[in-house]
């Protein structure tokens, strides 16, 4: 067991898998020169694995994502880095029209075993085009998988699974979580895709949270427990395919649900979770579902406004208390 931050955990997964499987290679913008990607995740990888296996690309998202698709079709296992999830617009066709659909529209004749790693989320005053949470867009695409770890342990295990998965996977890395420390087992272990994790057991209410919001929910839960409120925090870890069973089991136990996500509330990832629970477990709910998410605006630059944009601990506590009132 080692203590490391999420950035280091991601890198250790890359190193492990590239050592194990010669078909795995990395490409992306600025992933080679110091610091190794914008957040230093890929630092030193080219020194270890060489220029053939760790490739810097020009600023060409269509080409870098599309080349990943073509390489995956031709037998390799690319791990592409999209510098910021906000840049997906430039290369979106290659993801949603090509990678996602090829197996189906080619009648099962093709596999596209690729991973797109990308950073997301606000909190660094990076502005409207560098701070978004776009998981709802990706969840809406049949044919891909969407992974969103909240701890270094999950980050390493999920990335190993994602690289080994024969489907295209979008792997989301919250910028603030890069610096978050956690315990990570040495060597090989995987966290299965499509399996949620109950991060905290509780009995009074369920919080389903994603990404950075898992951490804020756990912090809120600790404060709430001092007031005698027992919160269960469920982290889906994979958004597509969504682990409905773990979420429903929790709701059937606590009878109350708050969903906390950083993406915009309207048509956001919380909407799918909410609709699913309402469809399949409404008789178990003692109170309306509460969704706590970002307001319907671009992410503002000002740190004061950005902090107001992102759901915070106080809001989570208030939402829990509201739900408990029934």
């Amino acid at each position: 067991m080692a203590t490391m931050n999420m950035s280091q955990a991601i890198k250790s997964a890359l190193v492990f898998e590239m050592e194990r499987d010669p078909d795995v290679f990395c490409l992306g913008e600025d992933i080679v020169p110091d610091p190794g990607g914008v957040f230093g995740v890929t630092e030193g990888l080219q020194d270890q694995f060489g220029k053939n296996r760790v490739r810097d690309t020009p600023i060409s998202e269509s080409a870098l994502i599309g080349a990943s698709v073509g390489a995956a079709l031709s037998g390799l296992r690319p791990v592409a880095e999209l510098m910021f999830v906000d840049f997906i617009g430039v290369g979106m066709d290659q993801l949603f029209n090509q990678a996602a659909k090829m197996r189906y529209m080619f009648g099962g004749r093709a596999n596209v075993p690729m991973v797109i790693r990308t950073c997301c989320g606000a909190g660094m005053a990076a502005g409207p085009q560098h701070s978004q949470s776009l998981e709802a867009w990706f969840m809406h695409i049949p044919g891909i998988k969407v992974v969103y770890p909240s701890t270094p342990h999950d980050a390493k295990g999920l990335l190993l699974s994602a690289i080994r998965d024969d489907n295209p996977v979008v792997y989301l890395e919250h910028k603030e979580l890069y610096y978050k420390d956690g315990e990570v087992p040495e060597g090989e272990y995987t966290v299965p895709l499509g399996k949620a994790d109950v991060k905290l057991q509780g009995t009074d209410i369920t919080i389903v949270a994603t990404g950075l919001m898992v951490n804020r929910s756990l912090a809120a839960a600790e404060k709430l427990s001092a007031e005698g409120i027992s919160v269960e925090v469920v982290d889906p870890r994979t958004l597509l395919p969504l682990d409905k069973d773990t979420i429903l089991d929790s709701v059937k136990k606590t009878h109350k649900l708050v969903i906390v996500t950083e993406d915009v509330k309207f048509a956001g990832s919380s909407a799918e979770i909410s609709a699913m629970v309402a469809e399949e477990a409404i008789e178990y709910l003692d109170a309306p579902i509460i969704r706590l998410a970002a307001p319907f605006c671009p992410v503002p630059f000002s740190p004061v406004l950005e902090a107001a944009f992102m759901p915070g601990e106080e809001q989570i506590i208030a939402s829990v208390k509201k739900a408990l009132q029934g």
Partner: protein
Amino acid sequence: MRISNKKMIEMYSTMVKIRRFEESIEELTASGTITGFVHLCIGQEAIAAGICGVLKDTDYITSHHRGHGHLIAKGGKTDLMMAELFAKQSGYCKGKGGSMHIADMDLGILGANGIVGGGPPLACGAALASQYKNTDDVTVCFFGDGAANEGTIHESMNLASIWSLPVIFVVENNGYGEFMSQKDHMRIENIADRASGYNMPAEIVDGNDLIAVFTAASKAVRQVRGGKGPVMIECKTFRIAGHFVGDPESYRDKQTVKKWQKAEKDPISRFEKILLEKKIATKSNIKKIKQEVHAEIEQSVEFAKSCPEPSTEDLLEDVYVD
């Protein structure tokens, strides 16, 4: 260059097969027998036959919405293609793709494509794989004058040039990007001029002259297999059919089309003349080839008609690899 008689006959047969397949599709669509959007490559057969004539099975191609010719020239099976166009379960894509999504990984066909400009980045990826695995396989990226204006072709040509990827960018300049004629959609006459912007060698050929296309392709393949980086070949041709079957073609006059259908411009007629003049084939050989091809296409139609429809139970099959 010296081309064997066998090769010449083979490529002629390929052109005839493409033509007959496309005319067949035109008839079947007009009669309402098959449905969906279809984009025919009538008049452009020499490019598919000439370029693919130099490729091996392990070489890759990326194609586009007007891709039946490429698929056939690369070895695609006409019965599976036809069944796919009939939307049947036994088609190449189990009826789930249609005309624009036929692919055959075993033959290095990375698919026709419904997105103009969708292929070039994929071609870079396949070429990257060859380079990575240290094989001498090349990737041909077919695209049209319309696609030449998509951002993806710029990104792809640049990426291929900086990484010296084994890609042959074949631009089929048929005079039209959908309904827009070339003179309106770009300021240049020769798309090959753009290659110099990537320090990439380029050649311009008469795309309706099979021998010229084959010769240029042979040279390109030698260069690219040798690891010297990507090249471009611009093939000048003309799109005889409309953009899609059913296109009223209000944007062009019928006289221009008729001119290109004449024997002295049509790629198949031109090559037939050479085969006869050089005594590589007799009139009787040619007739036999046409009969065999027609029979093959007819059989593929019968096969397609006889195949079952896909089952609704298969709607969710192949969304993911399990």
